[in-house]
């Protein structure tokens, strides 16, 4: 790359340089000697093990996919947990020594998660349900009964029919419950400053989920000693988290929450469990060079947590046994689920060491790590990991890795508990008399052993026929339960083994690709020092990810000799960049020189909300109820829907007249529904009680690829055609979770993440410029090339025409105004699977229409200075007129923002 231009960084960490370019060639002895002499200057020595990072931007996508849990043959339709994670991060130099870092992570997960553990022998657990007499799936049944022998061993039942087998069966099983997709977003920022032999960094950020908010801050630093053979690191951080767990309305009635009664509030029909937690961390460590081929890194960290440390969605099964039954041969146990109770304080200490050795014959590095952690919950852990970083030549690096982990169970972990008391008892007064209350007046109490032999508060006998006495009931005595209990399998004793590879490739021009894969398997039998005896919770997962990294050279790291004039030199080249179209216009410009590469990021936020519309007019709820859902009544309408699209733009010019583009997308959406005024709501409806929950979906969207062909390029006028396609990488079979004994079915058309079909996306663009003025026009379309997608429907075709004019406000800033006309066809065909059809958004004809919009935008091309060559654009698209097909929620506008960088 630029290594030859940058003598001051010779021998430093250029991650994207092919590693072998560092190896000493016999012909460069003189250069090496000179470089080494230069490296004697303290400021130019790098700290071993700590990369001198260059400015860069990273994008990463990863997919986490778990395997099925063991439900002992119970037929079910649970999808295992999966998560789609999008990550973007960057490092920018503010000055020669100060850097700014940022990161954004968004993950959307869905699937079935364990809510509790019970003996397999209960009458509940994962209870199969039937549709038309056929077992169609399983649903969680948390309140059940169990038969025990006189030693309290469970007497087995068939997991499917629940008929007693008469044989002792001590197996346990996870009780699963499915979840609709949920999204978490995290943003973090940092500032760092480097001195010659020290560094300091501060950072902070926040993470947001519907039910969990946390904010965090940290400070850290490094001091180098001993000619940088030794570095000492230190750091501290604080995280404040607020939990507001929306208790599953399906299972909540069957979960005992008495321990948290003070923390539960009711909001819009949902029970919300609130809690706060704080985490403090402090760590210190050192990196020491051991020889010219080896270094070691060791650190010790302390974490203190307090507050609500529970997982509010996990319950522990407690088997209540009537003490009077203990002598029987067969004892009936009453199985109840209680929200778990963890200690409110946790202290953890972790010691990590890592040894890195250079293996000369292979030009490879071996990394060996060991980590020990102990805590006051009894969870002691050991982690061993080893990896081998092998450069392969040609810019390729392969890194296989293996890891083994083992943990002891928390002292309060139990798959389930026994309690020798009734779940519900009749209340007893201080004299041991049973208490009764008057049904007509609950404040009046009577005392006595049976209903027909009662006395009142003054001790006078009561006529059993004149009062309507009923037992005063009290719940179990919580004091007889352990103070802390959890059956979250993450606190069980187990071991895990995982392995994977990372493959990376430097493309040159500051671009690197990286792909990784890891397979992980958890087994209670792999715990060091004996099996954890919880093999029912064993599972495995894999993670696959792909990343692209762009190395952005700040102008200041241009050759020192030209640093005075570098800004001018760069300005010179950027003056030749043509004007780019407004931010929303896709496929709007081409690269000019063969070999040029452009990387960019595009964000679009589309907001719908306000009134429901029919054609071009507002429509009343009653009309929607009557007419929006075909021959059914509509029950719900969307209240708002936000759609966000993240798109990575990669563009390359193999020749002057042809550019190729690849644009992976990532979508996420959220929608809230409201009940239509005048709607008759079906009590069993899938949405009936989902007030505070709403819907979210998010993951990979469709992937666009195209070729741009130059038709005309004369001074002031350019024209190109784009022949593009979109591949159906976005899902179209996202489902709402099953609840209230009803399947949620496929989520609304508009919440699916892609078209599901291969689409042809051609466009023709003309661009003109004269002096400070620029203008352009584009016509584009989408033609679906298949009849239907895997869910049975296809989205409508689209045609769009747009024209714009722009004026340079300054040398680097252009303002634009744009008009847009869009025609979009309704959806064709329909879902081929169950969909709840509760509102107009579930009907194909309520999609598409004709739309007129105005766009107002600015584009900036940074001409010089540290960020020269970066281009930024932002545009707001304001709806002017809409003519909707059928019944739809009004459009509020769209925001587009783009960033691009040309190499």
């Amino acid at each position, binding site marked *: 790359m630029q290594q030859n231009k940058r003598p001051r960084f010779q*021998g*430093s*960490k*250029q991650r994207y*340089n092919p*590693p072998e370019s*560092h*190896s000493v060639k016999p012909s460069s002895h003189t250069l090496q000697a000179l*470089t*080494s002499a230069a*490296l004697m200057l303290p400021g130019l020595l790098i700290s071993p093990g*700590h990369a001198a990072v260059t400015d860069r931007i990273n994008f990463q996508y990863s997919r986490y996919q778990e395997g099925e849990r063991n439900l002992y043959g119970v037929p079910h339709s649970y999808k295992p947990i999966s*998560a789609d994670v999008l990550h973007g991060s960057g490092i920018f130099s503010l000055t020669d020594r100060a850097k700014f870092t940022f990161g954004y992570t968004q993950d959307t997960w869905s699937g079935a998660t364990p809510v509790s553990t019970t003996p397999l022998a209960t009458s509940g657990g994962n209870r199969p349900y039937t549709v038309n007499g056929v077992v169609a799936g399983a649903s969680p049944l948390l309140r059940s009964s169990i038969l025990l022998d006189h030693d309290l061993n469970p007497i087995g039942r068939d997991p499917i029919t629940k008929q007693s087998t008469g044989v002792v069966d001590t197996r346990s099983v996870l009780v699963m419950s499915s*979840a609709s997709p949920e999204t*978490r977003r995290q943003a*973090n920022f940092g500032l760092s400053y480097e001195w010659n032999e020290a560094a300091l960094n501060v950072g902070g950020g926040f993470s947001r*989920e519907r039910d969990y908010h*946390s904010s*965090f*801050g*940290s400070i850290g630093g490094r001091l180098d000693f001993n000619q940088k053979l030794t570095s000492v690191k230190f750091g501290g951080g*604080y995280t404040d988290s607020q939990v507001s767990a929306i208790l599953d309305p399906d299972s909540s009635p069957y979960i005992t929450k008495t321990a948290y009664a003070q923390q539960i509030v009711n909001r819009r029909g949902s029970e919300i469990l609130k809690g706060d937690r704080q*985490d403090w961390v402090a*760590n210190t460590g050192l*990196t020491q*060079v051991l020889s010219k081929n080896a*270094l*070691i890194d*060791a650190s*010790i*960290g302390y974490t203190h947590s307090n507050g609500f440390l529970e997982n509010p*969605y996990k319950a522990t099964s407690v088997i209540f046994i009537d003490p009077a039954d203990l002598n029987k041969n067969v004892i009936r146990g009453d199985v109840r689920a209680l929200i778990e109770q963890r200690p409110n304080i946790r*202290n*953890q*200490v*972790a*010691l990590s060491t890592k040894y*890195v050795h*250079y293996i*000369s014959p292979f030009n490879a*590095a071996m*990394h060996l790590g060991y980590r020990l*952690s*102990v805590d*006051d919950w009894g*969870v002691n852990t050991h982690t061993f990991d080893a990896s081998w970083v092998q450069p392969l030549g040609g810019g390729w*690096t392969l*890194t296989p890795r293996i890891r083994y982990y083992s*943990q002891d169970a928390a002292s309060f972990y139990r798959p389930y508990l026994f309690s020798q008391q009734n779940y519900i008892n009749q209340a007893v007064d201080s004299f041991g008399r049973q208490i009764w209350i008057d049904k007509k007046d609950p404040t009046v109490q009577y005392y006595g052993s049976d209903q027909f032999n009662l006395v009142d508060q003054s001790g006078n006998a009561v006529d059993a026929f004149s009062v309507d006495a009923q037992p005063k009931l009290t719940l179990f005595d919580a004091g007889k339960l352990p103070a802390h209990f959890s059956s979250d399998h993450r*606190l069980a004793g187990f071991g*895990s083994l995982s392995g994977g590879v*990372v493959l*990376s490739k430097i493309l040159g021009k500051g671009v690197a690709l*990286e792909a*990784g894969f*890891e397979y*992980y398997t958890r087994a209670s039998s792999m715990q060091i020092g004996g099996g954890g005896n919880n093999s029912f919770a064993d599972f495995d*997962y894999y993670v696959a*990810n792909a990343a692209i*990294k762009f190395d952005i050279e700040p102008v200041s790291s241009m050759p020192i000799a030209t640093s005075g004039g570098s800004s001018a030199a760069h300005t010179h080249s950027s003056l030749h960049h043509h004007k780019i179209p407004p931010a929303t216009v896709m496929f709007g410009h081409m690269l000019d020189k063969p070999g040029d590469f452009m990387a960019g990021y595009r964000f679009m936020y589309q907001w719908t909300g306000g009134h429901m519309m029919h054609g071009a007019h507002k429509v009343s709820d009653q009309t929607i109820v009557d007419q929006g859902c075909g021959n059914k009544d509509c029950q719900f309408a969307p209240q708002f829907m936000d759609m966000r699209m993240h798109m990575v733009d990669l563009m390359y010019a193999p020749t002057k007249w042809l550019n190729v583009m690849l644009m992976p997308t990532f979508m996420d959406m959220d929608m809230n529904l409201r009940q239509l005024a005048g709607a008759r709501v079906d009590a069993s409806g899938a949405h009936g009680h989902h007030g505070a929950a709403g819907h979210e979906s998010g993951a990979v969207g469709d992937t666009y690829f195209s070729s741009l062909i130059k038709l005309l390029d004369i001074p002031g006028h350019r024209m190109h055609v784009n022949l593009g396609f979109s591949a159906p990488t976005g899902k179209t079979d996202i489902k709402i979770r099953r609840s209230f004994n009803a399947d949620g079915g496929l989520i609304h058309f508009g919440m699916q993440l892609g078209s599901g079909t291969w689409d042809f996306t051609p466009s023709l663009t003309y661009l003109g410029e004269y002096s400070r003025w620029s203008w352009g026009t584009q016509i584009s379309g989408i033609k679906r090339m298949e009849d239907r997608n895997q869910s049975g429907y296809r989205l409508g075709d689209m045609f769009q025409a747009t024209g714009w004019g722009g004026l340079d406000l300054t040398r680097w800033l252009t303002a634009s105004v744009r008009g847009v006309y869009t025609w979009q066809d309704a959806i064709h065909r329909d879902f081929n699977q169950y969909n709840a059809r509760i509102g107009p958004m579930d009907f194909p004809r309520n999609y598409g229409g004709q739309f007129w919009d105005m766009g107002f935008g600015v584009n900036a091309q940074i001409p010089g200075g540290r960020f020269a060559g970066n281009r930024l654009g932002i545009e707001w698209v304001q709806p002017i007129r809409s003519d909707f097909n059928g019944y739809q929620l009004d459009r509020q506008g769209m925001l587009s923002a783009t960033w691009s960088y040309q190499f």
Partner: protein
Amino acid sequence: MFAPAGMKRTRNIAIAVAFTLWFGVTGCVHVAPWERGNLAKPQMDIDPNPLQTEMQSHNYSSREAAPSHKSSAGGGGCGCY
């Protein structure tokens, strides 16, 4: 209560080991700047694949009870699934 006795002992041992190691090696190691070519290679970074490490540690911490590998950075969310 800060930590149980067993934990304290483990920590003391750990600290002792760390210091012995440090004084043991810093006293005798001399690697001249011009001998640090290998150490400067990207594969010799303590964390050669930071994007991978970040993601792995997020997955581990949502499935295991050990303190988060990147505990000083904070964040991570609930991981309640």
